[in-house]
Each structure stands twice: as C-alpha cells, then as structure tokens.
C-alpha cells in the first residue's frame, strides 16, 4: 500500500487529518518528513501544522520504532500493584533500561491508564494488551516476540 493510496481513501477535509495520520502510521510504523509533506499537501494545510499534530499524540510516531516496544501502565491502580517489579523483570530479561531510546531492538517505557484498571497490572507489547501480569509471567510473555 502506498501512501497515496491510503490518502485517497479519505476526502480532504480537516476532520480526516487525524484518522489519516493514524492510518499512515499503522501502515508504515511512523511518519517521516516526506510522508508528513505528502499528507499536508493532500489536506492543504501547512506542513508546520501537520507536524504539530503528528508529534502531539502518543499513538502516532514520527520516528522509526524498534521491533519491540513494551509499555507498562504506571497509573494509580497499576502503580499500587506490581508495576515496578514487572518493569525490573523486563529490564532483566531483555537487558534494556526503562526509558532508553537508543536501544535499536527494544524499547521499554511507562504508559498512562488505558482503562483496564480492574484487570491490572497492564502491559502493552507492540499494541497487544496483557492483563493481570505477574513477575513470573514476564519471560513467557516476551518469548513470543523473541
């Protein structure tokens, strides 16, 4: 799928900018400058405005993403459960540091509440949500991806 083809699925109205950004992001993993320029031209908005929008939202990337991105919820309910221990276990299993953006293979970060507080601790691995995660579960959960 080319970016042109994705864009043609949307009529060039302002309210389609965010949906289009999400779709291009889903198709290519991130939105680089070249793609941002094409999207801006398609919707007839200045590239500065489009880039402002693209960089604002958590679910849209403007940089190439590593193969494996893990986010651990650390909002109130999960923070009071075992979120911290789970982070340490992931650090040990993958040999990554929380928040390290220079690791080309893995990225481990924290995320805001995704509304599954009853089923916490919650961990998201490449957009797949895992609920009631325990320290013991971590290795098995990650092995699927390694």
């Amino acid at each position, binding site marked *: 799928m080319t970016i042109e083809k994705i864009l043609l699925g949307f009529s060039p109205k302002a309210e389609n900018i965010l*949906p289009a950004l999400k779709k291009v992001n889903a198709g290519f993993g991130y939105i680089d400058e070249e793609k941002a320029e094409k999207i801006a031209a398609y919707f007839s908005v200045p590239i500065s405005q489009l880039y402002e929008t693209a960089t604002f939202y958590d679910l849209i990337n403007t940089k190439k993403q590593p193969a494996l991105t893990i986010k651990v919820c650390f909002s109130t309910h999960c923070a009071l459960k075992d979120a911290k221990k789970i982070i340490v276990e992931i650090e040990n299993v993958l040999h990554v540091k929380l928040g390290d953006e220079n690791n080309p293979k893995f990225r481990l970060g924290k995320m805001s509440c995704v509304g599954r*507080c009853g089923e916490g601790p919650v961990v998201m691995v490449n957009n797949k949500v895992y609920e009631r995660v325990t320290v013991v579960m971590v290795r098995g959960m990650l092995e699927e991806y390694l």
Partner: protein
Amino acid sequence: MENTKILTINWGKINPLKIGDYLAVGGYLALKKFVSEMKPDEAIEEIVASKLSGRGGAGYATGEKLKMVAESESHEKYFICNLDESEPGTYKDRMIADNNPQLLLEGIIIAALSIGAHKAYIYINGNYEKQKETLETARAQAHKKNFLGAGILGSAYDLDVEIFSGAGAYICGEETALINSIEGKRGEPRLRPPFPTEAGLFGKPTAVNNAETIANIPWIILNGGKKYAKIGASCSPGMKLYILGGSVKKPGVVEAPTGVTIRELVDDFGGGVTPGRDFWFAQIGGASGRLVLEKELDMPLTFSRDCQIPLGSGSILVVDKMANISDLILSWTEFFRRESCGKCVPCREGTFRLHEIALRLQDGEISERDKVAIKDILWTLESTTFCPLGRFAATAMRDAVEKLNLLDK
C-alpha cells in the same frame, strides 16, 4: 427508589451486538416518544426538570447546555459525545459502550435532534478499539432500523453519527481540546469565551456531553424529568456509576444514586476493605482527585459546588497502609508531566518539576529546598494555569502534603 437502575439495568442480560435484544427490553421507546409526541424544546424542558448534571467531571447542568445550543440561530450545529475517558482508574464509559451501546446511541440521537443538529460525533479514546467496533456495529443496526440517517422513523429529522477515534492524549477529554483534535490540530485547549455552545466544532454551536450523562437521557424522556429529580441527592440528582478499585474486596463498576457516602460504596457495594489490610485513605476521581481520610468517609458524594470532595470521574481508589506512597506520588506526577499539553508555562514546567521531586522522593530523600519548592509549584499550578489540568496536577499532592503530612518526616 434506591433500587432504580438506569444505566446498568440491562448489562449482561442483552447481547450488545444485537439491537433486537435492546428493543425487547424497551429500547428506542424513548426515541419513538420523542419523535411522535414531543417538540424538541419539550424534550429539553424534561432534561432541565430532571436536574441532570454532567458526569464528565464538572457537573454542569445538562438541560441548560442543550438549551443554549438549541436556541442559537445557526443552521449548522453539532452534538459531541465525549467518550475519551482517560482519567486513571476510570472505565465507566467504556463499560457503557461494552454492555449497552444502543442505550448510548439512543441518548445521543435524542440529544442531537433536540438541539437541531444533523451531525453528531462520538469522540472515543484511541485505546478503546474494541468498543469502537461495538459502536460501529450498533450504529449500522440502528441505521437499518431507521433510528438514524434520513427521515428518522418517518419524521423530518435527519442525523448522522460519526465515530471519531482519539490518538492517545488525556487532555483531549477537555472539550475544547477535543474539538481541536477533530479539526486535525494539536489537542490543546482553547481560550474561552467563546464557549463551544456559541462557537465550537468548525466554529459552529456545539454541545459536548459525557457518555454517562447521555445514557441517562432515554430514561428521562420516558419517565419524566420530575421523577428523575427525585433520585439521590437533591442538588445533583440521579444515578451514577462509581468505579471501585485498589484494596477493596469486590472491585468494579457499580450504579448507585448520587449522595451516597464513600463508606457505603466501599462497605456495601465493594464488600469492604481487602481482608488483612487496613484502610489508610481513598482517592476520589482518579489521579486528579482528592484524598479522603477515614474520618471523612461519611460525606455524601455529589456534583454540587458545596461538596467538599468533588465526585469527578466517579473513581474510588482505596489505599491501604501497606501501600508505598512514594510510588503513588510518582504515578500522579509522571502522569501529569506526560499529559500536560505544553501550551502554558506554569503547567509544562510545574508538572516537570513536581515529577523530578517525586523521583528524588523515590530515593527516600527530600531536602528542605524541595519542601519549599513543592509549595511554590502547587500554588503556581493551582492559580495560574490556562486550563484545569494544571489544577488537577496539584490536587492530590496538596492533599498528600496537608492530610498525609508528606513533608513532615
């Protein structure tokens, strides 16, 4: 009266993906009544009489808001259902979409038609993908039954409902940021006035209401506003969803009238504090909510300005004495640092600095300099930020300082 259930009555009993199930329990009778027996302003009068107030946190009178948009002269108006729900500990609106999407749609249709809108939006949290699909199915089925689209139920009413998915930003729950987001811009709040009721989406009059608020409307249309006004606390009547979490025996979403006390919610609905744990405090309304000590548990929860503990999103987090408070503080401060939209300096910097102090607190040290700084930062957040998020970022920390004596060690 306490046994009335409005929002959850059919949860688990009907298949959310089958409109027939909803029709079999009296679904869309309110819309039929609205279309065949009522004028738009009569419907709004019922909502005014119900004294329904917004469940999105601020508690603004729903009927008054609809009336303002209904009375504006513009030919183009919008109705927006706010389902962005990203307050930590809060998932009541998601449960409505999961369990009874048609109830929400029926409320949206009635509200939108009553203000004269031809287009309504559901702005849904970008992480709620499954709920988006559920709502899309529900919408297609409602369309087929002619509850939506052109000439609704043979009348002259037209309405399209668009489901717009967010992209991960807490601030987009704030109504003007939400509107910017639909317009393809950064989700930053706008200066008001003008209020969205005058100049909202695409500059047109717009009513934005929370999903739970809207889900009350079919009942009000069917049973009358006066009857609704008799439920719960007289200052802000009605049924309300509360989300119980943390150290309670039975966590989850419960429906109870406004005016219940926190103790009733925890003990009667939540089965009490988790066995073997001792109650320390509760946080009411998510990460931006206030802290409540044991001696305050008998205060009724309402949306009134006089209510000392704002109900906010309705989330009740029970924290026991084994909890690590520095983790909770890190959680709050990190959340607001991440979610601050960056438009105004006091919030962008203040949330950043509070988070730095919270990190030092993790290491067990808090210097005299930090103690002074906390007070300065809290004052700045409370008094000078552009939108309420800045204040939210200070609320729980303020209570941790004043009620839990955080700085006295």
